[in-house]
């Protein structure tokens, strides 16, 4: 079976490899920035790209459980790395917004977070991710207990939803891309509600 062969092939891959792989988009971005390859307004490109990669990792994280249930491909081992990478990119995204975009205009930053729904949602997503990032280690799982830890980490569903809405609400018209992300998030949440197919419910 293909799923078993994939699982077998992945067995020797250390989870550290995923962290290395996850930093590739950042490395590309830095390389492009240094060589002037980001176009006329590099700040916006960096800001958007960091946010987009964060959202991609969130979607990837949400896909891991359904993937195992429906296909048998087991990537659970890599889920912590995926989540922490999402958090890293989200933090960088915020940092670029505060420093290079808003340039420490704190009054405007505060007003934006309080008044603009898309920024409020984005900020809420990041805040909600923080306890998840802080408890993404074996010690935390042990001290919380697996059940409580699992309940806490269901916050991911909310985070992904907030992040996708954050993207959708910031654009001017109705372009396809943010709708695709929101669609993916909703689909991955819906799949969970449907439950597992019989053959995987062992």
């Amino acid at each position, binding site marked *: 079976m293909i799923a078993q062969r994939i699982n077998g092939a992945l067995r020797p891959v250390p989870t550290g490899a995923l962290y290395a792989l996850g930093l590739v988009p950042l490395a590309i971005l830095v390389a492009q920035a240094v060589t002037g390859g980001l176009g*006329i*307004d590099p*700040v*916006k490109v960096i800001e958007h790209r960091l946010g987009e990669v964060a959202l991609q990792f969130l979607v990837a994280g949400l896909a891991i459980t359904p993937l195992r249930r429906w296909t048998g491909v087991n990537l659970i081992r890599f889920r912590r790395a995926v989540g922490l990478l999402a958090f890293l990119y989200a933090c960088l995204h915020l940092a670029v917004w505060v420093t290079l*975009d*808003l340039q420490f205009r704190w009054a*405007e930053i505060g007003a934006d977070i309080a008044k603009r729904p898309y920024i409020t949602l984005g900020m809420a997503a990041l805040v909600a991710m923080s306890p998840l990032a802080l408890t993404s280690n074996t010690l935390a799982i042990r001290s919380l207990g697996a059940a409580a830890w699992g309940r806490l980490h269901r916050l991911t569903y909310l985070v992904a939803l907030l992040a996708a809405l954050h993207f959708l609400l910031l654009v001017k*018209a109705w372009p396809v891309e943010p709708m695709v992300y929101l669609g993916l998030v909703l689909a991955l949440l819906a799949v969970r509600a449907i439950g597992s197919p019989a053959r995987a419910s062992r």
Partner: protein
Amino acid sequence: GLVGPVSAAGFSTDEKPNTFEEISNYNNFYEFGTDKADPARHARGLTIDPWSVEIGGLVDRPGSYPLDDILKGVALEERIYRLRCVEAWSMVVPWIGFELRTLLDRVGVQPAARFVAFETLMRPDEMPGQRQAILDWPYREGLRLDEALHPLTILATGLYDDPLPKQNGAPLRLVVPWKYGFKSIKSIVKIRLVDQMPQTSWNMANPREYGFYSNVNPAVDHPRWSQASERRIGSGFFAPRIDTLPFNGYADQVASLYAGQDLAVDF
């Protein structure tokens, strides 16, 4: 030349213009895609010769005016204007163009006219963005007649010493420097003088966010973002953020047009 008779008249800013490359590679022209780099990528195939503009409505001499004919009657001049996008970024652009009012005078505006309505070319074959219903095509814009007749309001045909690049709205576009950039409609094929406030594309798409007037106003935020400041494109990572000025810094020239209007209502 950098200093024309217009600079002497005080219409041009002495701020440093953005480069040709910046101005022609960072565009909002959704007919060619929603990414800022899309217009430069996709506008190449646009046919701009022959080009004519249908001028009609409440005018004495309606008709289809070939571009050559329109340009025969005008003196082109340089206007270095600030351009403030509704998305809170800005540039400084050295346009070549002529005052809209010279064209309106020529076609004879009738006394009943109160507004001017403009339309962009509709040609999905050459404008790939029009194959998606991002906006209700063709793109439409409008001005009140007094705004249209204001000497700051120009029709542009050039950029620096070159013809206007297609991604910037060739061969003929409006420039209204005290309003958000989307009011300055590109690649114009229709001008109508009318007695009612015309429909405008962004207002049709989202009336809560984009008003008919859309004067640059730091005190009236876009519902989704602040308009208090803007980033001046062109300095890479350190493009400075600057305070946005009422009427984009042209208040001395145009604020009187809106005397008695509440600009938070007529946004």
